[in-house]
């Protein structure tokens, strides 16, 4: 248990020290965070709903709809 705790702390320290000592990394992280917010929050939620998941309740309804689309 002690060993596990020690390992977790050392992994945390490894990442913490690594991120802390970044120079250009700060500018990069700013770009990455803005990008991820735009992609996963703005675009995904407001502009890219999953068409079949949001319009139909289950796979049966989805497959019926797709077959109807493919065969009409």
């Amino acid at each position: 248990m002690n060993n596990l705790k020690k390992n977790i702390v050392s992994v945390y320290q490894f990442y913490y020290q690594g991120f802390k000592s970044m120079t250009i990394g700060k500018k990069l992280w700013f770009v990455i965070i803005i990008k991820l917010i735009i992609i996963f929050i703005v675009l995904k939620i407001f502009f890219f709903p999953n068409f079949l998941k949001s319009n139909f309740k289950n796979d049966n309804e989805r497959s019926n709809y797709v077959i109807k689309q493919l065969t009409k």
Partner: protein
Amino acid sequence: MEHVDFSLVDWSRAQFALTAMYHWLFVPLTLGLSFIVAFMETLYVRTGDAEWKRITKFWMTLFGINFAIGVATGIILEFEFGTNWSNYSWFVGDIFGAPLAIEGIMAFFLESTFIAVMFFGWNKVSKKFHLLSTWLVAIGSNLSALWILVANGWMQNPVGMHFNPDMARNEMMNFWAVLFNPVAINKFLHTVLSAYILASVFVIGVSAWFLIKNREHLFAQKSMKVAAIFGLVASFLTMASGDSSARNMAKYQPMKFAVMENLYDGKNDASLTAFGLLQENTKVTDPQKHDFLFKIEIPYMLSFMAFHDPHAFVPGIHDFVNGNKEHGIISYKERSEKGKIAINALAEYKNAKKTGNENVENVALVKFRENYAHFGYGYYANRDFNELVPSVPITFYSFRIMVGLGFHFIALFFIVLYFQKKKKLETNRIVLYTALWTIPLAYLASELGWVVAEVGRQPWVIQDILPTIAAVSKINSSSVQLTFWLFFVLFTGLLIAEIRIMIAQIKKGPESEILENK
């Protein structure tokens, strides 16, 4: 499918093309530079020469910038599948899902775990463990590409699946057939090898800039040597994989092959047009002559490229549209009739299932299975067959510019090595400026490779089975148009950010140590 909203189809295609092409601006440098960095670090560990450590750290930083800006840009393509291409997403079922899931679990975790060691681990882990991490990042990045390209390869040559008519989904029957699909394997090799060329050109171009500025001579010379050797090896392997790509194309996507060669009427002893100017882009079904304003040909080469036989018959566009009994090619009219039978049989099967009429159900299923190979052509039964022919000029010119640039890169790698050996590279401004200005050309060649692959397979989303007109979601085209421009702004912003951060870092030179502990 009498009425098609072409505005919706075209905007959905344009949006996918835009996001894929922007995404591809980031990917090849990651794939290639990861290996170049791994080679440089190997030289450092083997020789103990501190200059190699300095060189490794500089290129690793540029790799980090490109990786960070490019990461997650591909996820937008998956959003588009769910929103704009929902029929397709449902239809492909787990065939597409499985490789992408493996990519996410295996390759992504491999690269993202060891990338931290690569950047933060200098002086914290042993030299050998650090080197191992760098190699694993390179292998992980390239494995990511493998799974994506397996999915793409399946779309170009659907194998190892079985269509479930109850669920309207393709189900994977043979994972190994999907993984070792000859189109997928070849596509993977050709794509990653060309990415190594791009990264080599990038390293040579940036190093040339240092020499032009009379800075960092040792650093630049050593970097150029590694990149030129790596680029040269990758170039020859790219040529070999390109050769088998041509044979795969002639076998599995012969229309793409004919379009790429502007070959309307099939022939034996077919010559390859090394370069030419197309006369006009008329409708292929018109009985007009489709020829060149001028062309330079290599006799017998096309037959040899396609079938490894200089006298083999290479079918042309007209052979596919009108059929060619002598060579066993059925016409698009016949294929569209068979496809229509498959589509109607699927509808009959579904209705019979609902009403519980087992006899009709069984008969419909047999009819469906017999004609499934032509399923996609059924959507063109009452349409213009010109829609089944990809753009000849775009495919023809893209291929030739890509190949031409490929030879330019080989020449550049040879020239760099030659002048280095003669110790005249630093003073040869023409070579240095050419190297610098070849960087954008490498990106152009890489993008054009995808143009040949993707424009050349139109209108198929899944070869012969599902065309774009049937794959698209029934949504409002104005919403696709809006998100097209949103992506355009977002990706352009990211590209500008990357170029600015990258240029600032290059100008600082290799003394700067970033993204990791000093």
